[in-house]
């Protein structure tokens, strides 16, 4: 006899509210339905009531983890509408901030995944390391969550001593390569809890249009930093790790390997930080009538902004945000079908979902 198990919207296995209604036979999930919208704040509508300065601060609050990515994507779109080009130093600082944010996000996710695996010592280790990433972000921006780094035509703050930041990054890299990476890639606990569960096949990944580490863990080699480079990514050498298995372990491995790739990018960007201004010298600019789109590879995958403007207006006519979790979440249904009920909290967490982003 089948029965329905609701998980959420408020549940110890979920970090943020959403609802997964699962139809089970015994301990096996037969089907699932997802419900979102519990964090809806009407941000797209609010954006139409904010001017070109205020809207940056507003969109920074779409997400509490990848706040920098949202302002970066928005500013890139607004630069297309104003014709402003950020100087090279600003583009490098944007890369540094984006990769630090990826590190912070991936290590945070590793901690949550460890907790859901029942590996609480690892959870504490990850959060200790994450604090050190936050220290680097605070050293650059003065803030721990909303960094207020991006502006139209560049960045708001310079990195005055890249060598000091480089030393902090090298210390972080050493610590991560000694703890997080070997444990996630070789530990029996991680393997037994993650291998072969929550499989998203390549075929299903393509049809659901999933993005980011979720796509790369199902064998899809897509990464906007390489496929459609923005900021200074065209000048960086890095790999986009891909795993073919599509299970929770593959998603774990992809993120673990990406942590090391982010450190590699950070070392390059900090060593080659070009001299000069960190903000365009053009103090006056006007928005042209039209629509501009911008895409960025956030820690969870592609973020896309469509920004529409009318010449002479101080406010955008429309700001549409497509977040990576919005693309990845429908795939959870296919990941949990056939899984054991006890594995579903870890499976849903394996896409590193952000419901605040998704609901906006």
């Amino acid at each position: 006899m089948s029965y329905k198990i609701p998980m959420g919207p408020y549940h110890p296995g979920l970090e943020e509210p959403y609802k997964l209604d699962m139809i089970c036979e015994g301990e096996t999930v037969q089907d699932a339905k997802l419900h979102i919208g519990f964090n809806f704040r009407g941000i797209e509508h609010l954006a139409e009531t904010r001017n070109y300065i205020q809207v940056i601060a507003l969109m920074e609050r779409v997400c509490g983890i990848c706040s920098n990515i949202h302002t970066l994507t928005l500013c890139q779109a607004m630069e297309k509408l104003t014709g402003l080009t950020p100087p090279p130093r600003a583009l490098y600082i944007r890369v540094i901030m984006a990769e630090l944010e990826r590190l912070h996000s991936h290590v945070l996710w590793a901690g949550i995944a460890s907790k859901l695996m029942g590996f609480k010592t690892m959870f504490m280790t990850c959060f200790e390391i994450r604090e050190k990433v936050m220290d680097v972000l605070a050293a650059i921006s003065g803030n721990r969550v909303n960094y207020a780094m991006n502006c139209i035509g560049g960045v708001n703050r310079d990195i005055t001593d890249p060598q000091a930041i480089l030393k902090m990054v090298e210390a972080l890299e050493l610590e991560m390569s000694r703890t997080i990476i070997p444990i996630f890639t070789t530990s029996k606990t991680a393997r037994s809890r993650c291998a072969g569960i929550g499989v998203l096949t390549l075929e299903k990944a393509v049809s659901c249009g999933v993005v980011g580490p979720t796509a790369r863990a199902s064998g899809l080699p897509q990464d906007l930093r390489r496929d459609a480079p923005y900021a200074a990514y065209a000048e960086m050498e890095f790999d986009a790790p891909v795993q073919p298995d599509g299970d929770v372990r593959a998603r774990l491995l992809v993120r673990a390997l990406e942590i090391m790739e982010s450190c590699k990018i950070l070392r390059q960007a900090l060593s080659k930080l070009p001299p000069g201004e960190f903000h365009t010298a053009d103090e006056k600019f006007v928005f042209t009538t039209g629509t501009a789109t911008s895409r960025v590879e956030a820690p969870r995958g592609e973020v896309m902004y469509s920004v529409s403007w009318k010449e002479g207006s101080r406010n955008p006519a429309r700001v549409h945000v497509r977040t990576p979790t919005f693309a990845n979440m429908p795939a959870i249904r296919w990941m949990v079908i056939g899984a054991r009920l006890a594995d579903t909290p870890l499976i849903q967490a394996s896409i590193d979902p952000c419901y605040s982003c998704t609901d906006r």
Partner: protein
Amino acid sequence: MTTSTMSLLESIPEKLGTTEPWVETGGAHWLATGALSVRELAKAMNELHARFVTITAYQLPKDEGFRLEYHWDLDGQLLGFPFQIAGNSIENGKIESIYDLCEAADWIEREIHEGFAIDFLGREYEPLLLRRGDTPGVNLRDAVAAGKENK
């Protein structure tokens, strides 16, 4: 852009039966759709293995209706296809659904239905809970939000 992506891009207008050229602006390659059916477009994108990205809906001023911009990614190139829906009344806000051809379009069609009260023909909706009560269009459609029109 690689040569193979460029030739794929050049093959799309012919595949869709249009003579319109690609226009690269604002971060995307745009192709005017004219009388083209959105379902024909979705089929063509599937054949090219393009990745569906999203649909962006705009309410146009006065009674000009709505513009829906469909986006696909082809080897890192963002493609944009604008479709116009004439008239602002609830009855006129209709366009064919591509959900059965493109599973990834499911949630964004539901969101636009709830946000703008646009009906995607040929599909049913499960609520995303983004709307207030059961009034589609209350979030972003001006007339419904102001309480002047209700479904």
